[in-house]
């Protein structure tokens, strides 16, 4: 068993202690940006959405914005809304789900400059309160670990995803939860995952997610080649979506799949979950964070600089050429798996060590370089 020191704002362990200024609508972004510039120690979350979305896009946006507030890495939240009704509904919904401090300001009452004045003062006292929180030693119960592979090449499937799978297995064995995603990237490997579903209902959910995804590609009249796998995957040696998927699913380890989650949906009990979502890096990482993941592991071949404002993103590669080319975007080099015979199991140990260090507060390269992509509506494949 391993332990680390975490904050506990709301019962579950938080590995960061963010005060978030959250935009509910693109018109509120300017106020959010200026509040965050004015009040040191706040994290601004802006996006171009929040008006007129319907259906699955509205659901994904609502779940991801609510999910950010509930993430254990968030100490408190200042919501910047546009008009009273939608803002009050949002604040009421999240207050029902959490005891953490959530306050709001409105842009339509007095304008952007007034929202900045009122909001900045509220945010000031949130930052002071957050600074009093202290870490305490805890285990992996209540820890949610998101895993994503991106910038994949042929090394991902044979080494770094397999080592990630080892780490996922161990997190679950220590009482934690792990979530993997990317529906397009289980095409051609869904039969293997379906065998690991806990019951027939979950088997059907896996096949339905894949069918809907493949139908979307067919209805668009496109070939997946060039869309997924993308050109950098192809340059890295990946030929078809089947090959990419068979390598991608190794990151999910070997435990049974408890359920298929919607984008940003919180799992109800520990274990392994699949989140049904398109595959683009920023969108999947945002969704995993909104599912409650305190940390996200990004297993990469050719590399990708993506980060997240709420959940640290741990970047792992097994490609020695990528280590030489993109070192500033990587946190862990396990290329010894391919160059000198390190076992996937030993590489899994190295990943667990890195998880513990980052959980204890060690910064990731993405946090320091300042990659804070926040993309709460995934579209595409």
């Amino acid at each position, binding site marked *: 068993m391993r332990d680390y020191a975490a904050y506990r704002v709301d019962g579950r362990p938080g590995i960061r202690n963010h005060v978030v200024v959250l935009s509910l609508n693109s018109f509120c972004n300017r106020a959010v940006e200026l509040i965050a510039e004015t009040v040191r120690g706040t994290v601004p979350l802006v996006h171009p959405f929040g008006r007129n979305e319907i259906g699955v896009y509205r659901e994904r946006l609502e779940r991801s914005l609510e999910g950010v507030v509930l993430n254990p890495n968030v100490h408190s939240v200042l919501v910047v809304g546009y008009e009273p009704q939608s803002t009050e509904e949002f604040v009421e919904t999240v207050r029902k789900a959490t005891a953490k401090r959530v306050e709001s300001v409105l842009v339509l009452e007095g304008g952007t400059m007034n929202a900045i004045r009122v909001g900045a003062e509220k945010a000031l006292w949130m930052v002071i309160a957050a600074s009093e929180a202290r870490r305490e030693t805890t285990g992996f119960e209540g820890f949610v670990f998101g895993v994503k592979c991106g910038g994949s*090449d*042929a090394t991902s499937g044979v080494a770094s995803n397999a080592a990630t799978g080892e780490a996922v297995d161990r997190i679950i064995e220590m009482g934690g939860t792990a979530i993997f995603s990317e529906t397009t990237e289980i095409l*051609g490997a869904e039969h293997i995952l379906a065998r690991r579903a806990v019951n027939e209902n979950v088997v059907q959910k896996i096949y339905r997610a894949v069918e809907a995804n493949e139908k979307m590609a067919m209805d668009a009249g496109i070939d997946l080649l060039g869309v997924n796998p993308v050109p950098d995957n192809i340059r890295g*040696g990946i*030929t*078809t979506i089947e090959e990419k998927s068979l390598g991608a699913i190794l990151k999910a380890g070997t435990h049974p799949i408890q359920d298929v989650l919607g984008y940003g949906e919180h799992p109800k009990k520990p274990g392994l979950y699949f989140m049904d979502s398109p595959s683009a890096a920023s969108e999947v990482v945002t969704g995993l964070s909104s599912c409650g993941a305190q940390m996200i592991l990004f297993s990469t071949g050719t590399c990708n600089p993506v980060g997240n404002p709420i959940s640290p993103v741990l970047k792992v590669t097994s490609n020695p050429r990528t280590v030489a080319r993109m070192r500033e975007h990587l946190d862990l080099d396990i290329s010894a798996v*391919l160059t000198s015979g390190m076992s996937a199991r030993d590489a899994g140990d190295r990943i667990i060590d890195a998880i513990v260090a980052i959980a204890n507060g060690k910064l990731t390269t993405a946090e320091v370089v300042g990659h804070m992509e926040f993309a709460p509506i995934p579209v595409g494949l």
Partner: protein
Amino acid sequence: MTASVTLEPPKWLWLHAEDNVAMALSDFTKGSSIDVEGINVVFHDDVEYGHKFALREIPTGEPVIKFAETIGVAKREIRVGEHVHVHNVQSLRARKQ
């Protein structure tokens, strides 16, 4: 899973006995040759790090196998030592009708 066993870093990776392709862990040039578990592979093309080459002849329409699973089918006959990639392999999933 087998890989070339030397004190040098391995130059190729053959994941499963049923796989008809292996992965290059080195840059191979056209005309060079290697031994993969008793299979004499003469490269018909340059094969870059991470890319695949054929260990067995794969007739047109037959499966290309990696991870002991089908990753696509041969668009045309593929000879031992050929680069196996998008120019000679077709995915079976989500294809334009």
